[in-house]
C-alpha cells in the first residue's frame, strides 16, 4: 500500500480547463474521479421564459456544437406543436448538422487530439519529428490546413442558417431560411472543395475506397497499400497509434448509446444505414447486442453531484437542478449529473454511432481488442466518409424540388416534448415542458454529461472514470496516456450542462 498515491492531472486543449483526480498504485491508475467544477445554470435560466426561447438561449451552451443544441431545441418544439417538418427542412437541418460535425471532427483531431503526439513523452519515438512537423500548435502543417479548411465548410451554415456559431434558423415546423438555387450551388462547391481536401490530406483515399475497409486486417493492408495512405493524417494516426499502444488503453464501460443521427426525409434517395428512421441508427449497445433506445429508460442520478436530492434517479421530464455546494467534504464531487440508460452508464460519440450501425470495421475492432482510445478516435476521423456523400445528395434533392421549408404552427400554450439528436460528441437531448405559454422545465443531457459522468448511487463509475481505471502509465512525470484516453472522448467541458463546465477536481 505504501506505493499508493493521489495526484491531480490537469489538462488543457479541452473546452475549459480540465483536472482529473487519479489514484495510483505504483505505476497503475486504480481509481479515477471526474468532477465538474463550474456551474452555469442554463436549465434554471430557461424557467419562465417564452416558449421559443430555447432556440436562442440553448445554442449558447456550447461554442463548438451550437447548431446541435439548436436542432435538439427545435425537435422538442416540433413534438410540442405536433408539426410535420417538410422534407426540405429536414434536409437543411441535416446538411447543417453534418457541416458542424465535419468542422468538429477535423478540428478535434488536428488541433486537440494529435497535439499529444508532440508530447515530450515521445521524444525518442520514431514518429516524433513527423509529429512536430504536423501537429505543433499554430505551426504544424496539418494544424494550419485544418484551420483553413474547417472554416470554409462552416460557410454552408452561414448560407443556410445565417451564421456559425449561434444561429436560430431552425424553428418548430422546419427552418426559416429559403435557400435559392444559387445558394445550393454555392454549398455544393464548398462541399466539393472540402471533400477534395479531406480525401487528399486527412484520409489519403476516396471516401468510397475507405468504406471497403471492413476489418482490422483490411485496415493494416490499407495502410501499406499506397504512399498516399501512409502519408495522410489518417496514415500517421495509424502509425502513431500502433507505436503509442492506443488500442490497449481506454476501454471504458463497454456500453454505448446513440439516439440516431440525422432524421431521414420521407422521400429521399439516401439509403439509411439502419432501420430506425435515421441515417445512422439509434441503439443501446451492450455486450455485443443492439437494443432500441427508449427515452423512458434515461434517468439522471445526482448522488455524487452537487445538486440537492437524495440520490434518487429522475427522468429528465421530472429532473431538477438545484445546486447544493457541499465543497469537498462528503461524497459529492461534481457539477455534472450521472445519466444512466436502464440503470447503466454508457459512452456516446462516433464509436457508439458506428456500433449502433453495426459497421463491420468497428465491430471487428471491438471483437478483437474491445473498445479503446484507438477505435474511438478512428471512428471520429473517418466518420466524414459516411456523411459527406449524403450531404451532397441532400443538397441535390433540395435543388431539384420546389417544396416548402416550413409548416406554420399554432400558438404554443401547453405541452411537453423532447428533442434527441446526435451532436458531434454524441447523444444530446433536450426535455421541455411548457405551461401557460411559458417554459416550466428545461432539462439538457449533453454528450459529455454521459461520458464524463461521476459515480451513481450504485457506485458505478462513469465512462471516463472506467476508461482510466486500470491504466498502466509509462512515465509518471508525463502521463500522456491520460491525455489520450480522455481526449479520445472529445471532451467538451463547456457543454456539460446542468450546466456544469467540467473542470476537474475532487
Amino acid at each position, binding site marked *: 500500500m505504501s506505493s499508493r498515491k493521489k495526484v491531480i492531472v490537469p*489538462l*488543457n486543449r479541452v473546452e475549459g480547463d480540465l483536472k482529473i483526480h487519479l489514484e495510483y498504485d505504483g505505476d497503475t491508475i486504480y481509481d479515477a474521479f471526474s468532477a465538474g467544477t*463550474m*456551474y452555469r445554470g442554463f436549465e434554471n435560466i430557461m424557467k419562465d421564459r*417564452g416558449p421559443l426561447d430555447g432556440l436562442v438561449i440553448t445554442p449558447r451552451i456550447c*461554442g463548438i456544437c451550437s447548431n446541435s443544441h439548436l436542432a435538439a431545441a427545435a425537435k422538442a418544439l416540433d413534438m410540442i406543436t405536433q408539426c410535420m417538418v417538410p422534407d426540405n427542412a429536414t434536409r437543411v437541418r441535416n446538411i447543417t448538422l453534418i457541416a458542424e460535425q465535419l468542422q468538429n471532427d477535423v478540428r478535434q483531431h488536428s488541433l486537440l487530439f494529435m497535439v499529444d503526439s508532440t508530447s515530450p513523452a515521445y521524444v525518442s519515438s520514431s514518429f516524433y519529428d513527423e509529429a512536430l512537423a504536423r501537429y505543433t500548435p499554430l505551426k504544424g502543417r496539418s494544424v494550419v490546413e485544418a*484551420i483553413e479548411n474547417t*472554416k470554409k465548410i462552416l460557410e454552408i451554415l452561414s448560407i443556410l442558417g445565417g451564421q456559425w456559431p449561434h444561429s436560430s434558423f431552425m424553428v418548430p415546423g422546419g427552418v426559416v431560411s429559403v435557400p435559392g438555387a444559387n445558394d445550393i450551388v454555392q454549398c455544393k462547391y464548398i462541399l466539393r472543395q472540402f471533400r477534395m481536401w479531406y480525401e487528399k490530406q486527412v484520409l489519403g483515399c476516396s471516401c468510397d475506397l475507405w468504406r471497403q475497409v471492413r476489418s482490422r486486417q483490411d485496415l493494416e493492408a490499407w495502410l501499406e497499400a499506397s504512399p498516399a495512405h501512409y502519408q495522410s493524417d489518417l496514415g500517421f494516426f495509424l502509425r502513431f497509434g500502433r507505436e503509442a499502444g492506443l488500442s490497449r488503453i481506454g476501454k471504458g464501460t463497454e456500453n454505448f448509446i446513440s439516439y440516431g443521427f440525422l432524421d431521414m426525409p420521407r422521400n429521399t434517395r439516401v439509403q439509411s444505414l439502419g432501420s430506425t428512421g435515421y441515417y445512422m441508427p439509434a441503439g443501446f449497445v451492450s455486450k455485443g447486442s443492439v437494443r432500441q433506445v427508449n427515452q423512458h429508460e434515461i434517468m439522471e442520478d445526482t448522488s455524487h453531484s452537487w445538486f440537492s436530492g437524495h440520490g434518487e434517479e429522475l427522468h429528465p421530464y421530472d429532473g431538477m437542478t438545484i445546486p447544493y455546494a457541499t465543497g469537498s467534504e462528503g461524497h459529492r464531487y461534481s457539477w455534472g449529473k450521472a445519466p444512466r440508460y436502464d440503470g447503466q452508464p454508457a459512452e456516446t460519440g462516433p464509436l457508439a454511432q458506428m456500433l449502433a450501425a453495426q459497421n463491420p470495421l468497428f465491430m471487428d475492432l471491438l471483437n478483437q481488442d474491445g473498445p479503446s482510445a484507438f477505435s474511438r478516435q478512428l471512428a471520429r476521423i473517418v466518420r466524414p466518409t459516411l456523411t459527406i456523400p449524403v450531404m451532397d445528395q441532400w443538397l441535390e434533392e433540395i435543388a431539384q424540388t420546389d417544396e416548402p421549408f416550413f409548416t*406554420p404552427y399554432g400558438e404554443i400554450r401547453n405541452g411537453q416534448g423532447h428533442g434527441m439528436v446526435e451532436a458531434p460528441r454524441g447523444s444530446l437531448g433536450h426535455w421541455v415542458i411548457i405551461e401557460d405559454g411559458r417554459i416550466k422545465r428545461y432539462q439538457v443531457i449533453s454528450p459529455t454529461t454521459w461520458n464524463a459522468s461521476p459515480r451513481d448511487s450504485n457506485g458505478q463509475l462513469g465512462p471516463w472514470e472506467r476508461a482510466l481505471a486500470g491504466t498502466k502509465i509509462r512515465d509518471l512525470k508525463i502521463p500522456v496516456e491520460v491525455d489520450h484516453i480522455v481526449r479520445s472522448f472529445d471532451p467538451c467541458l463547456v457543454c456539460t450542462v446542468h450546466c456544469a463546465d467540467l473542470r476537474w477536481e475532487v
Partner: protein
Amino acid sequence: MSLNLFWLQCGGCGGDTWSLFNASSPNVVDFLEAQDINLLWHPSLSVQSPEEHQDIIQRLSEGKERLDILCVEGSVIRGPGGTGMYDDFLGTPKKDLVYALAAQARYIVAVGTCASFGGIGADGEIEATGLQYHKYDIGGFLGEDFVSAIGMPVINIPGCPCHCDVIIGTLSAICRGTPPELGDYNMPLEWYGVMVHQGCTRNEYHEYRVEEKRMGEKGCLFFYLGCHGPLVHGVCNKLLWNGRSSKTRVGVPCFGCTRPDFPQLYPFFETRNIEGIPLELPEGMDRAHYMAYKGMAAAAAPARLKKRKTRI
C-alpha cells in the same frame, strides 16, 4: 518586440474563440504571426504543461513578466453568495485570477457579451457579471474607476459571439499602439457605431413596412418577429458571418446579442407592440413621427415589393 497576450476563459461557451477561427484575411495563424503576438496562454491552443501554465500565471500576477493584452472570454461568475465557487480554478474562485491578471495588464479586452456585460447568467443564480459593466450599469466586477496599466477602461467588444473581424481589428489596433476610439459602454465606435439593420438585404421591406407576420414569409422581421436590427449596434450585415450571410438575411430575427441586456427577459421571436407599432423604436426615433412615417410608407409600398419573387 513581441506582445504578450493571455486569453482567459471564464463563464462562457468558447464561442468567441471559435468565432475567431472563422477569420479569413488574416486567419488566426497569420494574424498572430503578423502582429508578432506571443500567445502566453489560450485554453484551446496551448501545449504548455499544467506546471508551466501555473508558472506563467504566477509570473504575470507578480509583475515578473509583462502582460500586454489580457483577453477575457465569458462572464465573471460570483455565485453562490459572492464566493465565486461556481467556477473555481485550483480550488480558488476564478474571479480572483481575473482580478490578479487585470491588475497587471496594459490593455484588457472583454471579448463577447458575457465578458462585457454579464450576458447569459447575469440575472441568474450564478451571479454572472461583466468585467466593467453589469448589463447597462457601469461597475461590474472591476468597478467604475478601474483603468488598466495603460490608463484605459476595459475595451468591450460584445456580441454572442463577437465577430472575428472585430476581435482581430481591436487587437490589431492595440498592437499598433493606437487603441480604438471608444463610444457608449466603452465599445469601439468603428464597429459599434453601425446598426445591425445597416446592410440587411430586407431593408426595403422595412422602408415600406412590408411585414413578416409569420416565419418563413418574405418581409421585415422588425414589426412582429422580434428583430432587433434597427435597435442595436453591430456589424453582422456590414461584415457578414463566415464571409457569407447574416441571420436577418436568411430570415432569422436579430436577437440583439451585442446589447447590454442580452439575453432579454421577455420572449424572443415576438415584437412587443402598441397597436401594431413596436414598443421599442429605432434609436433616437420619436413615436409620433415614426407612426406617421410608417403609415405613409406602408400606403406607398410598391406592388413590386409586396409581390417580390426572390427568395428573400
